[in-house]
């Protein structure tokens, strides 16, 4: 019944919706083209990557357009004109695929083909299009395109330039395939492709040990979670007997399963995968280390792909989680997803305060925002969480690209805010403006993108009686505002320091460093710590752009890096586009203005009905400024307090706040607790890994020496003895006897038959006919 309805839907849906499988297929094909031919291309394969992403973007845009049309067609007059939160009226059975329930139930459009079938289980690949998939498709294709354009400048001259583009293209292909997945198998495929590519990209500069370690750490940590994905998928198969995502959602929402406990276990197992992939507590530790990769990679990884994968999984299989974990059951105060998300919001935000590396601040900020998304899903704010994925991608991508732009042009490839930045606002106006807009969006300042999504999550937590998470949300907003203010101050305000100081025209360093020869030398003298510090933060040793590479800038005929200029257009154009979107994209779903266009497009993809009832998502709360006010006040407070403290602590003027963490014992303890990331890394590496690895390796050695070697030796000796006996009696007497005997017999027979082979044709003929005659005679005799 499913597939009949789907085919009908697809027949009228339009070319893009039916051929959406091309969106991941094009970059995947481009990957092979880049690998095989990239080095021979004039631009080292980057043109193939960008062209393929543009192709994917065009098709994704077409798909999005046709999806909107499709929603309009299915929604009918009521859905189209209804405005306000009442739109998703009771009885709207959205998960129903056939669309027979009501005119405004928007069916997902599935277009699949059997990949293989195993004893009645059909595993399909293809495309499964609904609002959620379309959102992510457009987002991923768009941001990947911009990031690739940005990368052409950022990694220019890199020794693995071609491989970089190959990996980043395959990475996008993996994410797109996962987003489109109609079955869990394709989902896992895309998920694992991303895992592999993130390893390759984070370890892009693997010649330096910290980078290689960070890549391995990312891979292994995510792998720990991936076990949950496999186990959870197997459990889903056991519960529902199918791997099709549409059917799983439908069955889960309809309550057609045997055991609730099993479903809960499956949801928990799947959520463990999300914890690993989306950097939730306690497996968030890989994410900041993943900053070792080139900045465009961090940007792509942390905005629209990879880390969003976990959130996407929860959103995709929301009925499984919602039903399995009893989300929104009356009286529920806590559930697994919301608790993990809430913890992540707070601990990651706290960690962001003690980072000196601008990218690490952003990395913890990403972890914290992912916590918001998970928390949103945990409290039943499905639409708001998905919308937060959408808006967060724009402003976080922009922030990372700003950080890359600052490092690339402004601070001599250092990401250290304390030693190498400061005062850059006048020298890099484009980067500064985009940064401010994106930061405003991240903080949730009204009318920027992040406000509408984050406020909706916080508001829903309160509305759905998850009071604790309401407070977590607004405290998180306060912390977000504060740490972003600190980072902004350190980067763009105050006095230029270190690498950024060279940047300032007319600075007294300028004359001193006018000569290229003197430059690197003087720099090294001036900053004996900078190299060590960069290494200590496992960051960013560009092999082509290291600290020793200053004079390459001058030789390229570009202005010297300490002349005042912003980044080249390949860097600024994506920044401007993303900054503009970060400012306006929130209006796609701004309850404050009765704009719920986005919700209208995607809500059906949640797979659950909205409204009252068991296993229903509550309606989003009515927006009111008074409800949003506590959060906004805290954000404003965060900005002010942090700005004041930053000026005091990092400014030039002497202040009693300076060195406070060194003077006050409790503060020092807290500071070092944060600097050491709650000692989680130490716990994992020194305690758990040691406890597991060392006894196991010792036991394995013992088993190896005593048991396996003993067995092997025993078998060897026994075999030799047997062999001797066999040789003596069986081989020599029996086998050889038989062989010799048959040889002798054949020789004798040959000798006696030799005269027959006279070589005379007529004799052969006579023998032939004689034989035929004998044969005929035998036949006659037998038959009579």
């Amino acid at each position: 019944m499913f597939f009949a309805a789907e085919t009908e839907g697809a027949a009228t849906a339009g070319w893009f919706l039916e051929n959406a499988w091309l969106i991941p297929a094009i970059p995947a094909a481009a990957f092979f083209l880049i690998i095989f031919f990239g080095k021979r291309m004039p631009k080292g394969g980057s043109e193939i990557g960008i062209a393929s992403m543009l192709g994917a973007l065009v098709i994704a845009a077409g798909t999005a357009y046709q999806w909107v049309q499709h929603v309009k067609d299915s929604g009918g007059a009521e859905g189209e004109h209804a405005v306000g939160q009442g739109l998703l009226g009771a009885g709207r059975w959205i998960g129903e695929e056939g669309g027979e329930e009501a005119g405004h139930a928007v069916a997902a459009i599935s277009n699949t083909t059997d990949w293989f079938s195993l004893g009645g289980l059909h595993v399909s690949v293809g495309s499964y299009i609904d609002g959620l998939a379309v959102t992510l498709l457009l987002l991923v294709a768009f941001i990947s395109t911009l990031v690739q354009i940005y990368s052409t400048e950022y990694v220019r001259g890199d020794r693995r330039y071609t491989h970089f583009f190959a990996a980043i293209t395959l990475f996008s292909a993996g994410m797109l395939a996962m987003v489109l997945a109609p079955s869990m198998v394709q989902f896992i495929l895309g998920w694992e492709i991303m895992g592999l590519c993130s390893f390759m990209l984070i370890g892009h500069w693997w010649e330096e040990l910290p980078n290689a370690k960070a890549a391995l750490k990312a891979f292994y940590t995510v792998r720990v979670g991936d076990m949950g994905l496999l186990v959870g998928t197997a459990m889903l198969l056991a519960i529902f007997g199918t791997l099709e995502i549409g059917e799983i959602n439908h069955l889960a929402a309809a309550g057609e399963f045997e055991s609730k406990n099993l479903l809960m276990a499956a949801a928990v197992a799947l959520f463990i995968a999300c914890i690993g992939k989306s950097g939730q507590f306690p497996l968030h530790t890989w994410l900041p280390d993943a900053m070792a990769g080139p900045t465009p990679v961090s940007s792509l990884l942390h905005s629209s792909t990879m880390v969003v994968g976990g959130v996407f999984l929860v959103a995709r299989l929301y009925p499984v989680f919602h039903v399995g974990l009893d989300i929104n059951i009356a009286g529920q105060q806590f559930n697994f997803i919301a608790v993990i998300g809430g913890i992540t919001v707070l601990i990651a935000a706290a960690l962001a305060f003690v980072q000196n590396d601008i990218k690490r601040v952003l990395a913890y900020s990403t972890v914290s925002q992912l916590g918001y998304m998970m928390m949103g899903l945990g409290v039943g704010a499905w639409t708001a969480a998905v919308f937060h994925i959408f808006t967060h991608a724009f402003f976080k991508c922009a922030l990372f690209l700003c950080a890359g732009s600052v490092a690339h042009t402004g601070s001599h490839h250092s990401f250290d805010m304390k030693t190498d930045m400061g005062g850059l606002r006048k020298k890099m106006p484009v980067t500064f403006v985009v940064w401010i807009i994106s930061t405003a969006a991240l903080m949730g300042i009204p009318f920027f993108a992040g406000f509408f999504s984050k406020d909706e999550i916080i508001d829903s937590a309160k509305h759905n009686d998850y009071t604790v998470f309401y407070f977590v949300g607004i405290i998180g907003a306060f912390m977000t505002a504060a740490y972003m203010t600190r980072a902004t101050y350190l980067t763009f305000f105050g006095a230029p320091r270190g690498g950024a100081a060279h940047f300032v025209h007319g600075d007294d360093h300028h004359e001193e460093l006018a000569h290229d020869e003197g430059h690197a030398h003087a720099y090294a003298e001036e900053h004996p710590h900078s190299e060590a510090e960069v290494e200590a933060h496992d960051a960013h040793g560009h092999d082509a752009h290291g600290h020793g590479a200053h004079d390459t800038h001058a030789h390229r005929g570009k202005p010297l890096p300490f002349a005042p200029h912003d980044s080249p257009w390949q860097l600024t154009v994506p920044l401007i586009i993303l900054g503009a979107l970060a400012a306006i994209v929130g209006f796609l779903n701004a309850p404050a203005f009765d704009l719920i266009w986005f919700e209208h497009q995607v809500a059906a993809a949640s797979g659950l009905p909205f409204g009252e009832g068991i296993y229903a998502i509550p309606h989003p709360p009515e927006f009111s400024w008074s409800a949003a006010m506590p959060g906004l006040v805290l954000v404003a407070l965060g900005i002010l307090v942090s700005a004041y403290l930053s000026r005091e602590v990092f400014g030039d003027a002497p202040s009693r706040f300076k060195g406070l963490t060194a003077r006050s014992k409790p503060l020092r303890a807290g500071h070092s607790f944060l600097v050491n990331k709650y000692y989680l890394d130490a716990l994992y590496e020194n305690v758990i890994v040691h406890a597991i690895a060392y006894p196991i390796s010792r036991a394995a050695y013992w088993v190896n020496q005593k048991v396996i070697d003993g067995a092997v030796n025993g078998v060897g000796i026994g075999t030799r003895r047997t062999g001797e006996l066999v040789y003596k009696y069986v081989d020599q007497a029996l086998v050889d006897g038989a062989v010799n005997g048959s040889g002798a017999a054949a020789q004798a027979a040959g000798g006696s038959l030799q005269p027959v082979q006279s070589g005379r044709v007529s004799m052969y003929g006579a023998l032939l006919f004689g034989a035929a005659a004998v044969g005929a005679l035998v036949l006659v005799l037998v038959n009579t």
Partner: protein
Amino acid sequence: MLLNQFLLLGAVLFCIGVYGVIARKNAVMVLMSIEVILNSVNINLLAFDRIWMQADPDRLPHGNVFALYIIAVAAAEVGVGLAMVLLIYRNRRSIALDELSEMKG
């Protein structure tokens, strides 16, 4: 009975052919003898076909088709055979088969 005469004719021709194949030294004569053998078989096929046709007029003429088939194959076989004979003649200036004993084992 009619069938017997045909079968006798076939048998006689077959024996003549076999004798020719075994006794003749000239390769061309051997080939001709083979043709005789094949045609004796044809006679048998046609005779049986005719008999069966009398019993059941509706049946298809399988025997005739067989005979046609054999004629076609025989033509091809003679073509190949004559080509071989020609080559043997060019090499040895003789087509006497008893002088050919290269195949002696």
